[in-house]
Structure formats: C-alpha cells, structure tokens
C-alpha cells in the first residue's frame, strides 16, 4: 500500500463518561473526526481552543487511547492492528514530541546511556561502533557537541540543550510521523524559533512528517502546510495554511483569525468586539453545528442538522450550512 495516506482518521469518536457515585454524563470529546495526511512529508496543524479535543486525538494516534467509533490508520493499517502485530515498529515510526523534555529522561542515567538504550531497544545498530556513530551524527545534526553532552546527566543540560537532545533522539529513530502536542507553548520566543525551524528541517531533510497540535495560529502558520480546525470535538474546516489564514470560510475560523493578536502595533484590532455577556464553561450543543450558540449567521437549520464537510474547491473543506454543508 505504497500510496496509502501516512495518517488517516475516519469518523473517529471518543466518548468520556463522567465518574462519581451516580454515574456521569456522556461527553463526546471527539465527534466523528475525519482528516488525513499525505504519504509525502508534510506538516499538518491541528488547531483548536481548549476543549476542542485536540489532545485526545493525539493520544488516540499514539495508541494511548482507543477510539469508541471510527478508526485511525497509519500507512493504511489500523493503529490497533499495528499495536497488536508490530508494536515496536509502530513505536519507532510514530513518535511523540514533548513539551518539557526534562521529565521523560531517567535522571540517574547519563546521556550516552539514555541514547544507547534507545538504539538498543529499537535495534538501530548492529555493533557498538555503529551505535556510537549514529548517536554522534544525530547530536551533531542538532548542533550539540557529543563531547559536551554525552558524559552529562539530564539536569546538567540547559533547557535549550535538553530540547535539542530530545530532537536528536527523534532523529536517531527517524520516525515517519511525529505528533507534537503544543511543543512550544511554554518556551520562550528565542527558543521557540529554533524548535520550529528544526521541525521544518526534519520534514525537508529527513522526510519526517509532523502533526503539529496547537491553539496558536501564529506558529502554525509559520511551519504548517495544511490545517485542520476543530471546534468542540468536531472538524469545522480543513485547508491549506494560507487559505485558512487568509480566506477562512467557517464563521468560527473567521472569529479565531480576527482575534489573533498581531505582533505589530500598527495592525491592532480595529473594531470593538462585542463582549460576550455570559459564557459558561462547556456548553455543547446536543446536535447541529458546534458553533451555533456563538455564530452570528446561525439559522434554524444550524440548531437541528450537523453540517457535513464539503469541498469548496482545491481541497478546502468546510462544515457549515452557509456553504451547503
């Protein structure tokens, strides 16, 4: 299946049930989500506000959670099948990128040992010499000097070095897909730029695709080729990053884009936003469009019928009744 998409989600649904002595309400964190990533190297941004289900989607792709409906396919094969038949291969090919790489390392192991464990676990080398060579190359690709890093413990590295070490480990594994959930939101801008540039280099130089999960359109626009916009567990729009930013179609996407603070004092928000009188946490419409309560174009139909994703041309898809969804 050479031409199968690298990653494909088909009607993926995840339901959480509330706990408590009286049993909880069902909560659809992810609601029939469908999108895919091509077999060629690419960066796809999965953009949504808190509660959009983006982290739940990441956990399902990584195999930490199982979907309650629909299925997820990696290179044409479902993730449950990968995990059953070739778990180690799947773990090598699909890697998570973490926000704070400090917590993922065993603090009493030196860096050389940590990296050698990775090499051994995934059988990346046939000899000790080859392992050393692989590790050196990976570190150097991330501009870390092997002689400075290898003999040290994780806590002896700076934040920036730890981050690059984590990326070096990814490079060692040469996965086909990385899943990066808000990898830069806690980083200072000066480190953020370096990190984003490496993700881009991974794609161009090593053919590593990335699912970049974020709430931040500014960084998504910087590195992603395409974007999937989520609202309360549902996909509302899919398109090239350019189109999503410059020609957003869904009223939700339009609201988000127009509210992004631009780092330029000469392009401030022009009109005053009508402040929401009351916004309660987690009001989810039972049916219809997820944005219906906040949408200025809402019609009767929007409350009743969930709009389906329609292609309005050139792969730009939107789920909105204004566009015939």
């Amino acid at each position, binding site marked *: 299946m050479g031409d199968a998409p690298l990653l494909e989600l088909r009607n993926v649904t995840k339901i959480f049930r509330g706990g408590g002595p009286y049993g909880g309400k069902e909560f659809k964190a992810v609601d029939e989500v469908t999108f895919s990533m091509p077999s060629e190297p690419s960066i796809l941004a999965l953009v949504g*506000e*808190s509660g959009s289900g983006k982290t739940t989607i990441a956990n399902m792709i990584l195999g930490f959670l199982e979907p309650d409906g629909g299925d997820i396919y990696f290179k044409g094969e479902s993730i449950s099948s990968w995990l059953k038949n070739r778990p180690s291969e799947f773990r090598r090919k699909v890697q998570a990128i973490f926000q704070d790489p400090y917590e993922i390392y065993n603090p009493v192991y030196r860096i050389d040992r940590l990296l050698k464990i990775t090499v051994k676990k995934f059988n990346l080398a046939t000899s000790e010499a080859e392992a050393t060579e692989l590790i050196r190359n990976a570190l150097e690709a991330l501009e870390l000097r092997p002689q400075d890093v290898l003999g040290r413990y994780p806590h002896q590295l*700076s*934040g*920036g*070095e730890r981050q690059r070490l984590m990326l070096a480990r990814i490079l060692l594994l040469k996965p086909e897909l990385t899943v990066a959930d808000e990898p830069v939101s806690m980083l*200072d*801008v*000066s*480190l*953020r*730029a*370096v990190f*984003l*540039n490496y993700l881009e280099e991974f794609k161009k130089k090593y053919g590593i695709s990335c699912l970049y999960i974020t*709430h931040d*359109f*500014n*960084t998504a*626009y*910087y590195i992603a080729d395409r974007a999937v916009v989520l609202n309360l567990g549902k996909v509302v729009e899919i398109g090239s990053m350019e189109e999503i*930013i410059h020609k957003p179609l869904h009223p939700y996407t339009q*609201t*988000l*884009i127009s*509210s*992004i*603070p*631009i*780092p*330029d*004092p*000469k*392009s*401030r*928000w022009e009109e*005053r*936003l009508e*402040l*929401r*009188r*009351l*916004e*309660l*946490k987690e009001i989810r419409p039972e049916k219809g469009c997820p944005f219906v309560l906040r949408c200025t174009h809402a019609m009767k139909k929007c409350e009743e019928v969930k709009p389906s994703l329609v292609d309005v041309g050139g792969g730009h898809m939107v789920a909105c009744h204004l566009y015939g969804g």
Partner: protein
Amino acid sequence: MEKGTILEVKNLKVYYKTIAGDAKVVDDVTFSVYHGEIFGIAGESGCGKSTLVEGVYRIVKPPGYIAGGEVLFEGVDLLKLSEEEMRDIRWKKMAYIPQGAMSSLNPVLRVEEQMIDAILDHSNISKEEALEIAKKSLSELGLPEAVLRMYPHELSGGMKQRVIIATAYALRPDLIIADEPVTALDVVSTREVLQTLRELRDKYGATVMLVAHDMAVHAEIDDRLAVMYAGKVIEIGSVTDIFYDPLHPYTKGLIDSIPSIAKKKLIRGIPGIAPSPLNWPSGCRFHPRCPYARDICKAEEPELKEVKPGHLVACHLYGGD
C-alpha cells in the same frame, strides 16, 4: 517628580536569599509610568518581570526581600510606609492581579461572596453597599449580574478573568497592575480581556501596567513598554519605537523571533541561553549572547540612557562613549 507621573520606580532591587548567595532577580531597575497610559513590561521567563511588580506592590515574600530603591506612587515612597499604611493603598489606589488569579477563586463560594469579601476587606462600608459596588463594576465591564450567583467552575476562563478585573477595579484604583492576564486563555477570551483592560483606561481613565511575555499582547494595547533582561530594564520606549526601531540587540532578537500570521518570514531566535540570577554575566548581562559584543560590554555595565526623545536603552552601542 515629573508632572503626569503616577509611578516612579528608582533603583529598585529585589533579591532572594539562597544558600548560594543572593539571587539578584530584580537588580537596580528604574522607570516611570504616566497617568492614564497602558505601560507594558516584557521579557522572557526568569527576567524578573513578575518579581518587579511584586516589589512595587510590596508583597515580596521571604526568602525574597527588597534590597533597596524607591517606589514613588503618587509622590509617596511605598517602601517607607508601614504595613498599615500600605493596606490603605492596596486595592483602593493600586490594584494588583497576580498571575493565575483566575484559578485562585474559591471554588465553593459564589462570585458574589468573593467580590463582596474583597471589597469589604479594603473599605468601611456595609455589605449592601459592597454588593451595589460589585454589581456596578460588573456591568461597567460588560458582565451581567447573573454572574454574581454563579460558582467559578461554571464560568469560562475568560469570564473568570473578567470577574477578577471587575473585582480589582471595584474600588476605582488609579493604577491596575495585571501580571500575565491572558496567559492560558483562548484566542477570543484573550481579545476580550485585553479589550476590558483597554476600556479601564479609555472609559475610566485608569492607568494600567501590563506584564506579559507575549510581545503580540504588548503590540495590541500598550502605549509604552519596558523590556527586561536578566533582572534589568534594558530598553523603554513607545510601542512603535520598540517594534519598529528596537535599539537593544536583545529587543531586536526578541522582535525577530516572533512568528506572525501577518507575514511569513524566517525567524531565528536568539542563540545561547538566559543566564542565572545567582551568577549574572559581568558588564552587560546580554554580552555572552550578543552578536555585537565588544570588550567594553564584558567589563562595564551599560547605563539606561535616553538616546532619542522618550526612547531609553542600556547598551554600549549607543551614546558615543
């Protein structure tokens, strides 16, 4: 004291005692805030911006202590006041919204009780009067009275933050200090909270001090801002000066590191890492990361000097000495 100045911070030092010696988290910082402006404090994590405003509000907790300087608020040095006198200033004349304030609301009390408690704590009025003040403050900030009967968990993050601002503004302080008020908020809530802060100034004439690491937030509402690095203010200017004509190499690097949907350009970041407050570099604290560093930068600490009208920078590249 200059005319129109509401707050003047002079040579303020806030240190933390540690076993390895004093951590000079805020080290000799001087700046002024004018009446009715939105003054931003920018800088990356660890630069001392939160500690600076804690010093101004005099709530530094041990092992931290104020090691020197003056904080002149409406002409009075706050650092010389007794704790009693300081209580009269706090909330009534100067309000402070700490970082993460919205998660500090008591989950088992309705908004009403929390707002009333805060108001009563700082004034000698009846409970009924306090309730009226709370209602008025909410409605001025575009929030319905219904919020009063709700519990914090029923409100979205943005709503909670607006309730906090309404509480802080209830007694009409002249100066509001907000520390990272939009961090962790969604895009639309961020816009609402920033608009609310701007309205405090536009409609009611309050002065706002806004601490934020996100430069886009400063670009959106500040009039002027100070950029901090390693415990020092290294540049002060109008928001246009800082974004269009940054002088300090650090400020330049910071501006060049911000990705934006407005234009696609390569962002580079700043090489090297931020130093530790236990061991600031000699001379200019930015010199180990600065592409323009010369010998003098390692030896001598540059002074914050006005190099253009209203535009101050602490860098040896400017000032001709």
